[in-house]
Each structure stands twice: as C-alpha cells, then as structure tokens.
C-alpha cells in the first residue's frame, strides 16, 4: 500500500517478464507471455488494489460475533458450513465495501499498469491512461468523454460503498 505503483510495476516486470522467474517458467511450460497484454493490466490492477479489499475484509471477519459461530457449532453445523452460513454472510457487507473501493482504485490504476501492460490503443490501454494520452495529444473532446465516464463510475462506487459500510447488521 505504501509502495509507489511504478515501483510495484517494476517488481511485477521482474517477476512476470520473459526473463523473470515466473514469466520465464510460464513461457517455457505453456508459451504464455504476459507483459504488454491485457492480462498483465489485470494483474497490475489487482496487485495495486488488493490492500484496499484485504483490510476491510479482515476487519469485517474480525467484527463477526464469535458467539454466533459458537451457537452454530453447538447446533451441529460443521466448520465449513459455519463459515458459509454464519461468518461469511455476517462479514459480507464489509467485504463488499472493500471490493468496491478496490474497484475504484483499480479503475484509476496508472503507474503499474503502464509499466507491465504498456498503452496499446484498443489492446492494453486503460481508461485512466487513455485520459492522459488524449490530453497529451490535444484531443480534448475524447478526454472530456473519458473523464465524464470515469467520474460517473467513481461516484456510483462511492455511493454503493457508503450504503454498505455502516454495517446495518448488528446482533440485537
């Protein structure tokens, strides 16, 4: 979370690049090349946004009343079922709030994506990078449209997260 995205992107390049440990193995075994593909953009966005979903999800799981899980156990419910029938539904809101925030962060991902996926129009160019390039190229109209779309999505995400966050589910 504290690492600059470009630095993260560099680490990703080292890892999944053709000469990287994982990238080299993938290339040899399956002929897969990740760098400068849209899949690389997905990986970059996921890595950068992961802390935003991890922290709220962990907090949500920790906030689940342990007594409810105990109640389920005494009622004869197996451990995996306790998780799926009590723990997960009780933590669900917190997890979804984190997912939405992570989504917004991934939408704005720039540095790491540019490092590993480049910016090939129509192939690996993301919305945020397209805004930058449109402005650089002086295509104000394109930039306006892209910015409007991004802003709208971000506002919707924020509204959604706000509705989920203050956990309506309380025991009592």
């Amino acid at each position: 979370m504290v690492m600059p995205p470009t630095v993260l992107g560099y680490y990703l390049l080292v890892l999944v690049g053709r000469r990287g440990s994982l990238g080299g193995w993938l290339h040899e075994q399956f002929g897969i090349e990740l760098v400068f593909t849209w899949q690389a953009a997905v990986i970059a966005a996921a890595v950068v946004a992961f802390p935003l979903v991890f922290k709220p999800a962990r907090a949500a799981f920790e906030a689940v009343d342990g007594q409810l899980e105990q109640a389920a156990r005494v009622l004869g419910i197996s451990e995996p079922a306790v998780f799926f029938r009590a723990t997960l539904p009780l933590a669900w809101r917190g997890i979804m709030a984190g997912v939405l925030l992570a989504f917004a962060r991934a939408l704005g991902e720039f540095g790491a994506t540019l490092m590993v996926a480049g910016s090939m129009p129509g192939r690996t160019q993301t919305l945020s990078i397209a805004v930058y390039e449109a402005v650089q190229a002086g295509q104000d109209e394109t930039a306006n449209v892209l910015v409007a779309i991004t802003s709208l999505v971000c506002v919707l995400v924020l509204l959604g997260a706000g509705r989920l966050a203050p956990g309506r589910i309380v025991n009592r």
Partner: protein
Amino acid sequence: MQLDIDIRKTMHSGSRKFRLDVRLRSSSRRVVIVGPSGAGKTLTLQAIAGLLRPDAGHIRLDGRLLFDSTGGIDRPPQAREVAYVFQDYALFPHLTVRQNIAFSLTRGWANPPRHRGCDAVDYWLHSFELDRLADQFPSELSGGQRQRTALARALVRRPRALLLDEPFAALDPALRGAMRRELDGLQHRLQVPMVLITHDPEDAAAFGEHVLRLHDGRLLAPESAVAAVASG
C-alpha cells in the same frame, strides 16, 4: 439425565488467574447452578457444550463420554447433541425467525430457505406463538420473543440436554416471571433435561430440583434435599 462432571481449568487474564474446579454428579432433570458473576458458571456450561476445553477431568452425559482428558476424548460441540441458549440468545441477525429455528435441521453449506417451512419448524413456531413473526428478523423482536425463538431453535433438534445461560437476565422484570412459568411448563411437558445457570436466587427457587452453588470456581456444599453431590 445422568450428568457427571469433574473438570479443572485454569484461566489467565493478564496477571489474574482463575481456577475452575467443578465436580458434580446428578441424576436430576433440573440442575441449577447459582453463583455470582465471575464464579465460573458460564465456563462450566461451555465445557459441557464443548466450547471450552478443560485442562483435566471428564464430562459424561447420559452415559456418553463427552470429554475425558486421560482417554484423550474431546467430542466437538457438533457431536455432543446438547442445546445451548446463550445469555443474549445469539440469534443469527441475518436470518429470519423461521430460518433461525430451522438452522440446525438444514445440512450443507447453505442456510435454510426463507419462505419454505417444514413440519418441525412450524410446530415450534406455533407452540411458541411465533407464527406471525416467522418472517421477522431478530432485531425486530421483543426480548421475550427473542427468547422464545432461541428456545425453539435449541429444542427443534431434540437435544439430550438443554443448557441455559442466565435465560432471564436479558428480560425486564415484568416479563421474567411470565417466561419462568413458560419454561417451567415447557420443561414439564417435554421432559428435556436442563442445566440452568443463574445469579438470581429466584430462578433457583423456580427450577431447582438440584441446586448447586458455585463460588470462585468451586462448588459449595449442597443445600437442596435432592442434592447428591459426589465430591471426589
């Protein structure tokens, strides 16, 4: 019910140390353990339910060994076939009254369906006068209704014993008497053995066939006539 408990457990909390040392043997259908808060009542009940692992000793219920430290036996709570009514009822806030009651009847990884009932659930909804509240969530219920839901959820799977942790403490005094009578009638009707823990002497007077006093982790000498405490 044949209840045979002989357990020891040491709990540490910071620099404080608490020693639980409970030995009791009873064939009563109504065992009441009375004691002030912090005496270890809940710990004892949790040990019977399998939610707390004693350091040493054994727990036997109706001839079934639930825990035995020397034999290495420690049945998980799922296999003990007891029902536990928590002090604040621990109803599942994300499920309706009907789903709460049906919880233990549904196996698998999904919760019971919201609107489809089954005979056993309908029976308990009806006998606790919860029919009209079947689709409500616990947060929408009154204290007495919550307690009835918790009792129905506990009884629906026909447990070998009903463990009650301060069942009336969360209720206001006016309701307490009524719910005592209700539980009393229910227990007579079902003949389900119960172990009730409470700090309230009135509960002991109402239910105590076999009353035990717990103080600072230890049971005191029996005072009820029916009592038969075997002190090892």
